[in-house]
């Protein structure tokens, strides 16, 4: 065992991991650029070096600067190599010291023959990584951003100690936690796993994520933890639980910003540790929720030449004779999957064979199916196999022409036939556009429909005997559409987006439905016949949109012609009955607008009308429940509203229903009881009577609007008194900027 180890090319990974585990000798890795001016490095002798650097903003530049600062040259690899050399010497020295102690780390790394090569040659540090320098550095960069949060708050002395233990980084790092709290690493199999384990080795890793996440943040008190969740794209397979797992993860990250805003950094219940997720397929459906919240890094497969080089090194260590040609064949067949290559090599080694091309061919049968993502299946459906690839797999022309089995296999192997079908559907229209009589398209659609009837028979009616045929229904896309040099298939989000949108709209209709039913209890069942499913979207929804947007002139509350007044009253009646509201919102360009709630309508015009109507509706609703408590704090009301909003058809009897205030309603500070604005003496924002001059009124209504909007703001973030009153005078946009109330006081 030790002999084996001695002869082995000294791996930096071993050195560092061992030093980490033993926590006696601090190790150094100057692999990335910590964002600061100096880098503190401690070598194996315990000597501390400071490497000077210029401050930089972007990760890439930082690195470049760092290397320049050290006068080693522009090439990134160079310093690493030097470091490695230095370290390997160090290690040799150190080894002699260490070997006489029983060492678990050694046992693990210095594998006996039984250990898998994959494990044995797993990179231990960042520097062991092949290819992907940039990506790996970005990952490290991201991790570095945590430093402040993870280590920054501990006392100075402790921190130093940890410095030594964990890694080397700059104390003065001014960065906050990164915005995205989860790092999502993705890449084809055989690549990702490799890359990440390296990060794995640095801080202490807790594999048991779930307990960690669920028991709260107890880990915080212990040593810094980096959570790594491997194969997170497999989370769907485990059923509901894992879905909630991803969901939980997202929640964990989402809760954070809010709490943090409120309570700058004193809040103890935030994630203070980085989370890294690893997946093969970044588009996996289970990850959809996670994606927006995570910093994403995609690993490309390293250039074959790097892989071959690495394999040769390993062969040398293992004493395996290998032809370079054979190795490159191996890499080509495996499509760069290093893990697969290593397994094959070990297999060959176990039979004491030399690595020749024929042996490689023999032992890689079946390996070609390793790559099985949806995208790759789609790509092979729409583009013919390249000559090179065919050669790599050792297929002759005839075998290549027999595509049905190959393709159906591939579709089967990726296991998501409906995703492949959606892919086909979204992609086929972009191909063969010069087909004059659409015959290809017709055929394609025919097959798609066959697929659909099969799969729905399968999933809806439980006819699982059909499943072997599913893949074949998609194969015809190959003869129909394959084209050399066709654009590569990109995952289309269209279908998914549509699904999401449908769900949102369904929710809107549901809430409208609830409103209708609630209204029906008040009116002897009046609205309930409109609440049924197809009637709702087909008849009620379009017409109600029209009914509540009459042709009123933009006017203000005091100047309403009698006929319009009638119209208006009716409108307000209907809206208040249906619990429809105009909710004030601010558009991106800062213009105020009213949105109909609950419903999505397109018309943004006629602000003034909506404004007026919104006021009246509120007035009407308010008048309905004047008998409820008048004096309540705004905050109390706000929470009350929010509570009520959720269950707007809780099934109370009619009278109780009426008492329910609408969401975001203005506070009852000024008595807004009168049914009709026209009958009421005009008041300004503070409740004082004002003269009925048009200008004033305008400002009044504006003020009222701002009042409303501000209280809405207040209700979303209750306790802090950072209510911003918007005071507007005239039409100039210049004065329409938010002003804090504190600036008046």
């Amino acid at each position, binding site marked *: 065992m030790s002999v084996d180890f001695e002869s082995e090319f000294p791996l930096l990974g071993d050195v560092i991991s061992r030093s980490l585990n033993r926590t006696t000798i601090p190790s150094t890795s100057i692999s990335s650029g910590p964002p600061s001016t100096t880098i503190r490095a401690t070598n194996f002798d315990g000597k501390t070096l400071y490497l000077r650097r210029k401050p930089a903003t972007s990760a890439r530049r930082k690195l470049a600067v760092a290397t320049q600062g050290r006068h080693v040259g522009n090439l990134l690899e160079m310093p690493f190599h030097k470091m490695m050399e230095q370290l390997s010497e160090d290690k040799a020295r150190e080894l002699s010291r260490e070997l006489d102690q029983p060492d678990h780390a050694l046992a693990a790394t210095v594998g006996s023959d039984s250990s898998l090569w994959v494990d044995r040659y797993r990179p231990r540090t960042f520097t062991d990584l092949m290819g992907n320098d940039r990506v790996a550095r970005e990952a490290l960069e991201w991790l570095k951003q945590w430093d402040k949060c993870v280590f920054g708050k501990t006392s100075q002395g402790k921190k130093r100690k940890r410095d030594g233990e964990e890694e080397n980084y700059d104390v003065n790092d001014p960065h906050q936690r990164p915005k995205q709290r989860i790092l999502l690493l993705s890449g084809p199999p055989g690549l990702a796993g490799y890359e990440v384990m390296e990060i794995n080795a640095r801080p202490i890793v807790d594999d048991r994520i779930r307990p960690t996440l669920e028991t709260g943040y107890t880990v915080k008190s212990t040593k810094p933890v980096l959570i790594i969740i491997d194969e997170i794209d497999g989370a769907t397979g485990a059923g509901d639980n894992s879905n909630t797992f991803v969901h939980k993860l997202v929640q964990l990250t989402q809760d954070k910003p809010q709490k943090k805003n409120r309570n700058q950094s004193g809040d103890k219940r935030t994630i203070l540790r980085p989370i890294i997720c690893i997946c093969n397929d970044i588009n996996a459906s289970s990850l959809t929720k996670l994606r927006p919240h995570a910093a994403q890094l995609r690993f490309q497969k390293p250039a074959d030449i790097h892989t071959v080089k690495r394999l040769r090194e390993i062969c040398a260590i293992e004493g395996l004779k290998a032809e370079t040609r054979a190795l490159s064949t191996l890499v080509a067949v495996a499509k760069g999957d290093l893990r697969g290559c290593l397994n094959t090599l070990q297999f060959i080694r176990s039979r004491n064979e030399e690595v020749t091309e024929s042996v490689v061919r023999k032992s890689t049968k079946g390996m070609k199916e390793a790559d099985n993502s949806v995208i790759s299946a789609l790509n092979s459906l729409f583009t013919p196999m390249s000559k090179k690839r065919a050669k790599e797999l050792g297929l002759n022309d005839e075998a290549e022409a027999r595509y049905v089995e190959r393709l159906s296999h591939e579709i089967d192997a990726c296991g998501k036939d409906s995703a492949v079908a959606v892919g086909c559907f979204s992609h086929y229209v972009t191909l063969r556009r010069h087909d004059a009589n659409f015959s290809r398209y017709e055929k394609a659609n*025919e097959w798609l*429909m066959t697929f659909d009837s099969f799969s729905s028979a399968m999933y809806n009616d439980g006819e699982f005997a059909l499943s072997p045929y599913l893949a074949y229904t998609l194969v015809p896309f190959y003869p129909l559409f394959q084209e050399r040099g066709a654009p590569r298939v990109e995952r289309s989000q269209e*279908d998914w987006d549509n699904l999401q949108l449908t769900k949102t709209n369904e929710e809107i209709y549901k809430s409208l439905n609830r409103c209708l039913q609630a209204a029906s209890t008040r009116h002897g069942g009046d609205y309930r016949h409109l609440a049924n499913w197809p009637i709702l*979207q*087909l008849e009620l929804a379009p017409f109600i949109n*029209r009914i509540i947007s009459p042709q009123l002139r933009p006017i203000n509350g005091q100047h309403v012609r009698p006929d319009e007044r009638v119209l208006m009253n009716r409108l307000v009646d209907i809206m208040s009955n249906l619990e429809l509201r105009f909710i004030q919102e601010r558009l991106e360009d800062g213009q105020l607008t009213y949105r109909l709630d609950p419903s999505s309508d397109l018309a943004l015009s006629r602000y003034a009308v909506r404004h007026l109507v919104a006021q009246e509706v509120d007035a009407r609703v308010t008048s309905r429940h004047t008998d409820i408590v008048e004096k309540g704090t705004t905050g109390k009301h706000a929470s009350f509203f929010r509570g009520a909003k959720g269950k707007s058809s809780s099934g109370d009897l009619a009278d109780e229903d009426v008492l329910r205030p609408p969401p975001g309603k203005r506070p009852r500070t000024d008595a807004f009881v009168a049914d009709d604005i026209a009958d009421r003496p005009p008041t300004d924002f503070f409740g004082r009577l004002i003269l009925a001059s048009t200008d004033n009124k305008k400002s009044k209504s504006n003020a009222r609007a701002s009042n409303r909007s501000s209280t809405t703001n207040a209700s979303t973030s209750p306790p802090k008194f950072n209510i911003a009153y918007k005071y507007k005078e005239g039409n100039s946009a210049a004065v329409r900027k938010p002003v804090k109330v504190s600036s008046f006081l």
Partner: protein
Amino acid sequence: MSLWVDQYRPRSLEDLHYHQELSTRLKSLASSGDFPHMLFYGPSGAGKKTRITCTLRQLFGPGVEKLKIDQRVFLSPSKRKLEINVVQSNFHIEITPSEAGNYDRVVIQELLKEIAQTQQVDLSAKQRFKVVIINEADSLSRDAQAALRRTMEKYMSNMRIILCANSTSRLIAPIKSRCLLMRVAAPSAEDMQTVMQHVSRRVGFDLPPDVASKIIDDSGGNLRKAILCLEALKMQSPDLSGSLTIAKPDWETYCQKVADLIISEQTPARVMEVRQKFYELLSHCIPPTVILKTVADRVVERVDEAIKADVMHWAAVYEVRMRTGSKKIYHLEAWVVKVMSLYKHFFYGMDFD
């Protein structure tokens, strides 16, 4: 105040404007004491529910209009929670079991059993039985219908069921034979004219007959739609004068745009464009069958007589496939491609012969 549709909805059998014969029948049945299970069927907007409510009032008096909504929770066999809204008064209960999707059988069984086993407590009630109204009965699964069949016999003594469906085709024969069938045909144009004049009189304005008939033409025998449309129109242009455009619902206009797109150009790019629009429509919860029908109707209006039948034929074929399939968009697009191809073949017929 309610929408006109509701506000001027007839409350009693005497107030109904059309199908007088049916009204008298219902009236005599309600007063005879031998009230059977009933099945009301007819197209949407013909007045089935209005008639049901009127019948209930005839049976129980105005008490049936005191409604409350209950949210009931049922457990599906796989322990999933199903939330169903139940509208009820002291005398009747109204459910829409299609809300429960595949588990409607559970809802039907549980709910009916519970109702059947509670006696009418109100001693002053006119009838000894309670009435259960099942809306959208034609969307009941076969399982649920089978369950209903037994229940209908078992609990005849203290419960009556009124089914409301658009068509009897999807109901199993045993259910049909256990119910008294009541066909409610869509009102004729004259009937609708009467009703709309009546509504306008009640509201207090004059409805020019030609405006009314325009609305009626658009409504396709759906009185509810017509009255909603009337109200929208009145809101939009209160004086009902000048050149009025009877606005169609947004989705209808949108469907017509899609049809125009299909007719005007037949290219893959256009297929993509149409697909986008279909996605849009589907995401607004417009039933795919309705989309297909509306678009097909419009396409048929604009193409040559020779291929009209084919367009409709393929619409029918793809519609039924769409029903059995699960990805509606595939079938919609397949139809579009088919129609485009038909259209091209028709125009360049010689080139392809």
